[in-house]
């Protein structure tokens, strides 16, 4: 879209991830009980980056997996059927762990609600935290993030697109008008 405006570039994104990593390690008071679960597609790459960054700081391999929430969505019947994304829970599971859910954009909160339901069927974590690269507001459920890369005030008619090298050839967060 022509009117897309870059609100975070790759340096901003690296900084944001670094900050999230430090906050995670700080609030968890260490890394041994952490499990990172990224919500596909881009949340999964962010979780991987966060895990790698923790390894860079601590030298510790934090268990990192993916959690597809498609089967738990509340809007399945509003759209054409969606293909499932991979779910891979680290071999030691999530029981008694501090699970950090990682997603790219926090908006209505419905994805996170679905993710909490999904977690409930998989095990019983000691705590669940939420890390997002961008919080664009407009929550429809009582959900708030624990770690935010960037608070980005938006209008409902705007679209926030997170691009990551792993799939998009560059790192950027872009804001555009819907239908522009």
């Amino acid at each position: 879209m022509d009117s897309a405006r870059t609100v975070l570039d790759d340096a901003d994104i690296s900084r944001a991830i670094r900050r999230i990593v430090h906050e995670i390690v700080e609030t968890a008071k260490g890394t041994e009980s952490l499990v990172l679960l990224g919500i596909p597609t881009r949340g999964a790459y962010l979780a991987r980056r966060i895990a790698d960054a923790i390894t860079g700081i601590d030298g510790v391999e934090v268990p990192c997996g993916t959690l597809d929430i498609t089967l738990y969505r509340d809007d399945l019947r509003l759209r054409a059927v969606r293909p499932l994304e991979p779910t891979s829970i680290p071999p030691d599971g999530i029981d008694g762990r501090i699970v950090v859910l990682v997603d790219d954009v926090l908006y209505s909160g419905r994805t996170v609600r679905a993710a909490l339901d999904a977690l409930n069927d998989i095990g019983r974590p000691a705590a669940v935290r939420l890390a997002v690269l961008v919080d664009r507001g407009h929550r429809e459920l009582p959900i708030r993030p624990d770690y935010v890369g960037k608070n980005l005030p938006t209008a409902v008619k705007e679209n926030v697109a997170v691009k990551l090298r792993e799939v998009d050839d560059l790192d950027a967060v872009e804001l555009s008008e819907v239908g522009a």
Partner: protein
Amino acid sequence: MRHLLSAGEIDRDQAVLILDTAAELGAVTDRSIKKLPTLRGRTVVNLFYEDSTRTRISFEAAAKRLSADVLNFSAKGSSVSKGESLKDTALTLQAMGADAVVLRHGSSGAAHRLAHAGWIDASVINAGDGTHEHPTQALLDAFTIRRHLAPEGGDLAGLSVAIVGDILHSRVARSNVHLLTTLGARVTLVAPPTLIPVGVESWPCAVSYELDPVLDSVDAIMMLRVQSERMQAAYFPSALEYSRLYGLDAARLSRLPEHAIVLHPGPMNRGMEISADVADSSRAVMVEQVANGVNVRMAVLYLLLAGDGKDAG
């Protein structure tokens, strides 16, 4: 997809999507809570005009794991056995708010008719119609073959599969020929000429009247049940002769490539098309086929019922 009536209607990408979806859903089967909320509030009717406990239970388990409500409507002891027509039964199910009907019927094309005659809005899943098709059986066979022989996923390109037995009357064979070739496999049908339909030359597969020459080149071999009434109808002279010529025994098993697997849609006639030691060998994957059947049927139910009912893309 709105209905699943025939493996012949599924293209490669759809087939791979179903198998991939089944693989993801299969992971759920390994957890302690095997239930997903995905189809909560939706109603799946198992409408079985023929007895097939294993297929019905498989669909029932699949629907229940996705939290759908399941109604079982079997011919015995129901209005169907009192002569109610398929149409009137369909109208009844429509009135009950069925979202999907899983139909097993003795008449070829019954599922197609139920889907397209305008009697009902529900999605129709063909769970076996006469001697036509049994697409979910073919999907679970393809899934099982992929797991063993193409574990990296994708299609079955380059694999060679033999289907042995009563091709003429087999809906499993028809569905498998379509699906396996769509997925890139080479299929060879093996049967006496009396059990191969006139017109088979239009099918995308090879035909062999002899089993022995194909053994050393197959990656998977699927043995079909031979019903004893075929013998009475003079399709072959005797059970003994059939089993000698077309039965899979230990000697023949030893001639298969080492990686080759043995499939059977069940129920087996031990001693007829398959010997007991082959059925119980480590190469036989029948138990896995049953487990995979649930995953594949979950995938089909998910893909038919979870969206808005309009075709994607």
